[in-house]
């Protein structure tokens, strides 16, 4: 492992030419220009001739053509991350709809019920479990194989965890099969059963297959982990049921964001040695001022508690909800503030707070490039 190893968290925005083509909307001149611009920037012009010729059709793409379009958006995104200089690479979820809808579509027993609000005017399609969940296919395998063909760098595959899938779904199946008069107890028992079934029959087989195919870095995304304070223990149990023996020769990280992290601390010991990296969001809570005193680095307060555990700290240094390009000096100070607490550059991984899907590629690239440059300055300062 490298000191202050850098990686992305998951999503990148999807290019307009990909979104429109998949949705059967007509592409305009700007969409084509955008594809050419990024192909040039990423030195992919020659390889992209096939893409340009498909996109020139503008509308009515065949199933095969849509597959090619996804292939190229995956190639572009992977190369964007590579060009920004990150140590672990990924394609920013170009194969997926998003982190919830995509896995749920690949599991039998779910039915989409409609949109619900997440914040402001952001919504997500929420499904209900209406029957026993069953894996339709290993839904991240093709993605892993495709990205592997693009790069020699190590790849990290993120995967939505069992707790988040359970918590973000309604339950109409398990609740009907639990006999308990107290409605709340009945609901809780149903959730627990639902969760463990997802961990054992959906997440574990997916992780196992990815490992068998050569994946070395697997990230379990659990943004919902702390949303119910009385369910932290079952969340931790679900991680153990999802990973089982796979931790022995695979690097597992867990990503949790916009949460009350303190709720996790009484239970973290149980996953020490199994989950290697714990990644939280910090930059969103931090000031934008350069400096290493605790007032300026207010977003990194939780490190005082986290340093007592044996995990690699996945350090969010980029706020994903703003177009503000963090200067490399700010990145440097966020990293070095953490280094003063953790004392070991191999126990800090540097990353954005979360996936960058709400930012344009231009912004995401500048942010990631500065993240890498900020890391280099930080390393130099501590003598690496």
């Amino acid at each position, binding site marked *: 492992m490298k000191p202050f190893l850098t990686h992305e968290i998951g999503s990148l925005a999807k290019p307009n030419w990909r979104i429109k083509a998949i949705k059967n909307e007509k592409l305009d001149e700007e969409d084509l220009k955008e594809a050419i611009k990024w192909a040039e920037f990423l030195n992919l012009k020659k390889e992209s001739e096939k893409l340009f010729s498909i996109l020139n059709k503008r509308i009515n793409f065949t199933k095969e053509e849509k597959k090619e379009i996804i292939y190229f958006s995956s190639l572009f995104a992977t190369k964007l991350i590579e060009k920004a200089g990150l140590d672990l690479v990924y394609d920013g979820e170009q194969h997926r709809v998003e982190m919830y809808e995509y896995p749920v579509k690949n599991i039998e027993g779910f039915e989409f*019920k409609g949109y619900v609000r997440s*914040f402001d005017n952001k919504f997500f399609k929420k499904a*209900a479990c209406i029957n026993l969940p069953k894996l339709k296919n290993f839904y991240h395998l093709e993605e892993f194989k495709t990205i592997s063909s693009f790069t020699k760098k190590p790849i990290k595959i993120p995967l939505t965890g069992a707790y988040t899938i359970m918590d973000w779904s309604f339950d109409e199946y398990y609740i009907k099969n639990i006999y308990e008069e107290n*409605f709340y107890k009945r609901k809780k028992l149903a959730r627990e059963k639902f969760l463990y079934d997802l961990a054992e029959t959906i997440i574990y087989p997916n992780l196992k297959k990815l490992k068998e195919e050569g994946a070395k870095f697997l990230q379990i995304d659990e943004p919902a982990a702390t949303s119910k304070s009385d369910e932290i223990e079952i969340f931790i149990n679900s991680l153990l049921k999802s990973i089982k023996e796979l931790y022995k020769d695979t690097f597992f990280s867990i990503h949790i964001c*916009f949460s009350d992290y303190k709720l996790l601390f009484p239970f973290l010991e149980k996953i020490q040695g199994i989950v290697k990296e714990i990644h939280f969001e910090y930059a969103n809570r931090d000031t934008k001022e350069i400096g290493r005193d605790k007032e300026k680095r207010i977003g990194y307060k939780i490190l005082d508690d986290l340093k007592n555990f044996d995990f690699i700290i996945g350090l969010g240094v980029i706020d994903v909800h703003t177009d503000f390009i963090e200067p490399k000096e700010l990145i440097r100070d966020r990293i070095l503030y953490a280094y003063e607490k953790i004392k070991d550059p191999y126990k800090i991984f540097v990353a954005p707070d979360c996936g960058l899907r709400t930012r344009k590629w231009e912004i995401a690239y500048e942010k990631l490039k500065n993240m890498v440059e900020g890391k280099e300055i930080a390393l130099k300062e501590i003598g690496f």
Partner: protein
Amino acid sequence: MKKVFLNGIYPYDENLILKLIDFEKGRTSYEKIQEEFRKNYDLIWELQKDIEYKSDGLLSWHDLLRPFSEIIENTKVLGLKRYFETNFFYRKLFFDKKLKIKENKINEWIENYFKIPDENSKRIIILPSPLLFLEFSENIKLKSICEIMEEIIDAILSKRKGILFFEDPVILKREILKEEKDILRKFYKKISSKTEVIVQTYFGKIDKAINFLFSLDIKGIGIDFIRNEVEKIKSWDKDKILVAGIVDCENSYIEKKEEIENILNKLREKVEEIYLSGNCDFVFLPRKIADEKFKIIKNLA
């Protein structure tokens, strides 16, 4: 008239959501969005046509605090904070030390955030409780929140008739300090002298808060009966109405009629005046399911 409240923020229908997604991507116009909003308001009024106190579903509210950022001078809208146990996020507000209402904007603000179907309609005027306000704010004290809310409430009541409905999950989530209780007692007493007040609690067990709630000078208390057992209500203050949250607004499972009737029958043995509502805001459900659940309680009321 049906004894039902359409409590909290109500979800948009799918057409409006799809238009909003398109709008953000530059694929539709502002006028088309407004057209969908108008249709959504019409549906909300239709849903409540046989209900005395009507809500506009808070359709123009992003969360229960955000409108206040537009009416209190120098308020900054901050980052996201999870709304208790849900997957819904609020934005925290940061206040200037000197709290002041934007006097020249207040009428327009009320028109925008407290809509009514016609001039004679009574509103269920939904607001965050002072404790909820505090939970999602920075650089402001409870006493100052109560003071500025009093001013805002006076302005609202000069334009709208109705019942005030304070949403308060916080009261069940943490210990309320003695000095906070004193401030809240005074606040609710003052507000109750102007109109009827209900404090709606949810997301927790009522046990520890019930005596304090009974001691408040308010017309009614809302309880989340998805999380609370009826048996825990040993006795009820006869002067207060109960707003019973008896459909689960966090799950799409449609309760069987007998499941709800079972709770309701037990409650009727203990409480004289009962209004029905969702256990919390309906916004956590897709619109179609919210409508279905709301119709269930309307039919039972």
